[in-house]
């Protein structure tokens, strides 16, 4: 099975405290720690497991800048066979459809049985997979938390739905799936694994290589545009308990008693 997995380099929410820049139109990105989007690691792990079982290749692809190459290398250290970086100044300002349009061009230059994305990335949209499927006219299932290959032409997939229930479907290949966390346990990537793939050639493709029109997939084609970032004042916010840990605990215990917590 030939599997393509779309991955994205994102600011790591566990490692960063986000600040806005002085203009308020972007995050202060100078000291941000980036990593692979959490969901994408599950997608790559799933692809590797399928290929280990059924044969084939896993290709990882990202639309990003030069620095995005590091996430491709990380996923190749996990076990992906190939990486492709789609990068062009003209891609800057692309919205979800722009990203999907760029990925579509790359997908059509190959032959894939299965295309995986993460369920969502840093912007919390969860859009690229569904858009890609519609553009390619392929069947789609989102939030997939189980995959079983039935034969060369169909697979069984479980979708996570509300309340922890699982919706089982049969879906024809080729198809696009967005992968939900928890579907597997992504393998650990050590520094040694990264070193092994450090010198592997990763092709870089721009708009003309892909045959996409920057006026469509870039900022000019974007119907959805981010205007600014801000930190909302939601209600009153929490009453922050301050002082030494002892003092805080004393105050907290009083409150817990009053509210029935003790």
């Amino acid at each position, binding site marked *: 099975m030939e599997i393509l997995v779309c991955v994205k380099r994102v600011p790591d*929410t*566990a490692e960063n*405290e*986000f600040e806005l820049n002085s203009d308020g139109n972007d995050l202060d990105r100078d000291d941000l720690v980036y990593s692979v989007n959490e969901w994408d690691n599950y997608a790559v792990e799933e692809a590797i497991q399928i290929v280990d079982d059924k044969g084939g290749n896993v290709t990882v692809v990202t639309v990003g800048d030069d620095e995005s190459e590091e996430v491709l290398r990380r996923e190749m250290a996990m076990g992906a066979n190939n990486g492709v970086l789609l990068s062009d100044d003209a891609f800057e300002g692309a919205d*979800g459809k722009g990203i*999907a349009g760029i990925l579509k061009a790359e997908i059509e230059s190959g032959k894939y049985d299965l295309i995986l994305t993460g369920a969502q990335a840093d*912007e*919390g949209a969860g*859009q*690229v997979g*569904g*858009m890609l*499927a*519609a*553009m390619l006219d*392929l*069947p*789609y*299932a*989102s*939030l997939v938390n189980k995959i079983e290959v039935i034969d060369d032409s169909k697979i*069984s997939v479980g979708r*996570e*739905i*509300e*309340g*922890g229930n*699982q*919706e089982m*479907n*049969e*879906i*024809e290949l080729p198809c696009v799936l*967005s992968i939900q*966390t*928890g579907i597997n*346990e992504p393998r650990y990537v050590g520094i040694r694994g990264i070193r092994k793939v450090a010198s592997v050639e990763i092709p870089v493709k721009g708009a003309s290589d892909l045959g996409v029109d920057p006026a469509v997939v870039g900022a000019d084609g974007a*119907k*959805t*545009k981010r*205007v600014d*970032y*801000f*930190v909302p004042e*939601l*209600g009153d*916010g*929490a*009453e*922050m*308990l301050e002082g030494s*840990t002892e003092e805080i*605990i*004393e105050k907290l*215990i009083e*409150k*817990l008693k009053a509210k*029935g*917590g*003790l």
Partner: protein
Amino acid sequence: MADIFAYVPHKVGVVEDIAYEYPDAAAKIDTGAAVTAIVTGTGADLDKACETLTGYYKEVIKVDQAELSYPNAEIIRKVLVNIVPAGAIVLAPHDTFGMDLAPGLSVKMDAGYAADIVDIEGTDGSDLKLVRQELGGAVSTHVTCDSSSGAVLTIRPGAFTPAEDASAGGSVTDKSGDAGDLSSKRTFVEVVEAEVGDVDITKSDVLVSIGRGIEDEENIEVAQELADAMGAVVSCSRPIVDAKWLEKSRQVGTSGQTVKPKVYLAMGISGSFQHMGGVKGNPFIVAVNKNAKAPIFQVADVGIVEDILDFMPELTEAIEDL
């Protein structure tokens, strides 16, 4: 402004809460907009859903087909492309169904798309002025979405004010005949219900809930000791279940359990909407987080900036000494 169509999911005829929230969202796009509810399904369940909706919408479109008895987003997408006029604005919920349906729908309608909308600030020409969040709620953003050739928006459940007045006296239009081709390369098989775990977190008045801040499986003991001292039960956020450190039945959130405790201690939980979506009944929320900017502090009653691994044992000791 364009006409607005709101897709309403229902379970056996009981419409999802988002049905009551769409009218507020639509009014925030344009107070004068005509909003039409669209509901699909079959038979008596569908009619029951329609009856509810006529209380809140002047116009309700129903599509009754046997193939729609289970909401397969792949099929519903095709139906909506046939039913919704070009250039319209379509609202769908930002939940596991809407995420399945809406991005592809926007492609097939050749319309703009914006996901997980938490607020709407009107329009500027054909641009919709929207508010959303990024990075698990750590920051908010204003976005514009060009609706000149239509737009599809997914609305965060619970973000808009539900309508209470059920006196719209609307009418139902049957468009079952316009549904079109209902074939799909994705076939629904069955729903597998979540497993019941050893503890029922929904029954406890006090929850000590742990998130990724617990850092290590071994540290769960520290939370269990606190819970024991308080006579509480340990629940958790999703990453703890994904890591297989606790059973799925302990997970609070939209894809886990809905809990209604009196007191909810969020320990090392950032406060994503999918997590908080499972915390109902307005409990007293205490958040302990080492990041003073964690979004959980916007929804908690009491906030403490501390390392939970130091704080929990000290709190346990103080409670045991009472």
